């Protein structure tokens, strides 16, 4: 199946674009998709600390933070949109 991944802020430079379509296997999870994306040591280092996401990395599935779903184990469906961005502040 294919999902769309959108990148924000510094992750656009890291992943070389604003968005891309990603092919993942049936039954794939958010963690699986991110593992496919992180195909270099630098990319993996920026997103992951061990098996989990780094503290400043926020991942949303169709607008919902995956932390409020099932985290990296959240299953994907065809046409899903995954957004990857660094923690940001403002006000």
């Amino acid at each position, binding site marked *: 199946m294919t999902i769309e991944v959108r990148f924000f*802020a510094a992750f656009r430079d890291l992943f070389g674009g604003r968005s891309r379509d990603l092919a993942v296997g049936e039954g794939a999870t958010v963690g699986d998709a991110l593992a496919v994306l992180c195909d270099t040591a630098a990319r993996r280092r920026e997103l992951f600390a061990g098996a989990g996401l*780094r503290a400043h990395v926020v991942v949303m599935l169709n*607008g919902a933070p995956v*932390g409020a779903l099932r985290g990296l184990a959240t299953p994907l469906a065809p046409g899903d949109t995954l957004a990857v961005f660094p923690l*940001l*502040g403002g006000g």
Partner: protein
Amino acid sequence: MPDFPIPGYHGRVLVADLSLGEIRPVPLDPGTALSYLGGRGLATRLLCDTIDPACEPLGPDNAFVIASSPLVGSTAPTAGRGHMVFKSPLTGVIGTSNSGGTWGAAFKSAGYDALIVKGAAAEPVMIDLAPGRAEILPAGHVWGKTTHETNDVLAADAGPGRPARILCIGPAGENLVRFAAVANDRNRVYGRCGPGAVWGSKRLKAIRVRGREKIAAADPEKYKSGQEQAIYLLKQAPVTKRLMRDLGTAGLVELINLIAMLPHKNFQDCLHRDEDVDRVSGETLAKTLLEKAGSCYLCPIGCQRHTRVAGRDGGEERGEGPEYETVVLTGPLCGIYDLAAITRANYRANELGLDTMSYGGTLACAMELAERGLIGPEETNGIDLAFGSAEALETLVGLTARREGLGAALAEGAHRLAAGRGRPELAMTVKKLEIPAYDPRASFTQALGYMTSPTGACHLRGGYAVSLAFFGGAKEIPRFSLLQAPIAIRNMQNMGILQDSLGICRFTGYAFSADPWARMASGVTGRDLSVAKLEEIENRVATLERCFNLGAGATAEDDALPDRFADVPILVEGRERRVTREDQERMKRDYYAVRGWDAAGRPTPGLLRALRIEEARR
């Protein structure tokens, strides 16, 4: 340090009565200092001791208080903020606002913990402060000048020695625009709740400070352990280490749009085209307008945006901003996606001394009134007032500051503008304060924050729920949890009270919580200011602010969102979301209980005793 028993404080409060033309120091009560800490806490206590909360905000009976803290002016990171408290002419309840830059630290080094200004002068005046010297001087020569002109004239007039720091109003404050700001260091702004109008009503143009009095810690080792921990963590956390410097606060624009929270057309919906949002994003700002990042006093974060933009009539302009709130409230909220126009209007607002947030909220309200035929072409003098009109944004900022034409109506703020046309429900305000750039229908937590903020709809006093709901990492809470919102928002509000009372920056909260501050505060004062002790102070300040508001005539009915947020849903994650009146009532009831207030939102006598609060003077 002089003969004050608590290190970190000078033990002196200045009291200026502009009606009498007198200014004199009085001792700071040590018990008051330790019970209210400084900044927002101490200033609120001193204001309650000085004025009747029922007073006329633009009359001589109102006062404002600026307070420092034991950390301000020390080597603690970001500890240079000044804090001002007053009765707001926009909202009629407590007004509280703060600003970065260097003025706050300079005020502390002039040898004072706080300044109370009451009464009103017959002619324009300024206050001039230095160690051992406090004077009220004529200021007719700068009356009518912009904040930048005033800053430059008064700094140059100060003569040789340490640089003088200037806090002043612009024409908007002089003209009693209800959301007029007070500015220091040219572009750092005490924005919200209309402090500039309070100054204008007193005919006070500026406060000039300079000094060299240093802070000595009672327990240098303890202080240093907290200070070094804080600096280490600020340099480790990605947001404070790099991201804020790269993108500034406007880096949030795209993300807030992504989570369906970016308001549009006076909060009619949250629907934007991605390509429009791109035009006003932090990334676009960084690529097209940013010259360099800058910092406030001892700040390693560096979120300031020093920018340049093409002038409206040719040439190039330089200035600071825009920040996230300004971008969204004077941009997409008004249907405008022209970053150059937003930036130029921001420059003008800083020079004229206007709060960009309330200006954006009021302009959006005016645009909706025009859309509904409630402001006719005969009032706009040829200005296109349709949503999306950058011409209106850039033209009306000056007219509002000068109260000319339609600007006279805008100068009253969104609530009075809409109520004057018989449609108060079209003002997107809580307690008459224009709502910040996060749609409350997209987060119950943020909704409750706006409802219960002591100053009206404010993300900084009410609780910045966005960071909790989406960016909090381990602290993450679901954004639609009625159950968790009251405690989460109480905790966020309390952290804000601590930060405001210590004179430090909100953004340190992205790196660490209260512990390093407790060490630093305990180390400076040599007193027990543990995290638990600080929490007691936070609760005391929150309840004292509530007492002030009740004394000013506010009731539980004022802790509510405009009808639109209960009646008109927006689409979030594929579901229609609104904050029903029942949901609002439930969250409010639980919040009051968490605070120890009764069902009508009144602090109980037992709580007042436990917190050792003397009620705000009636």
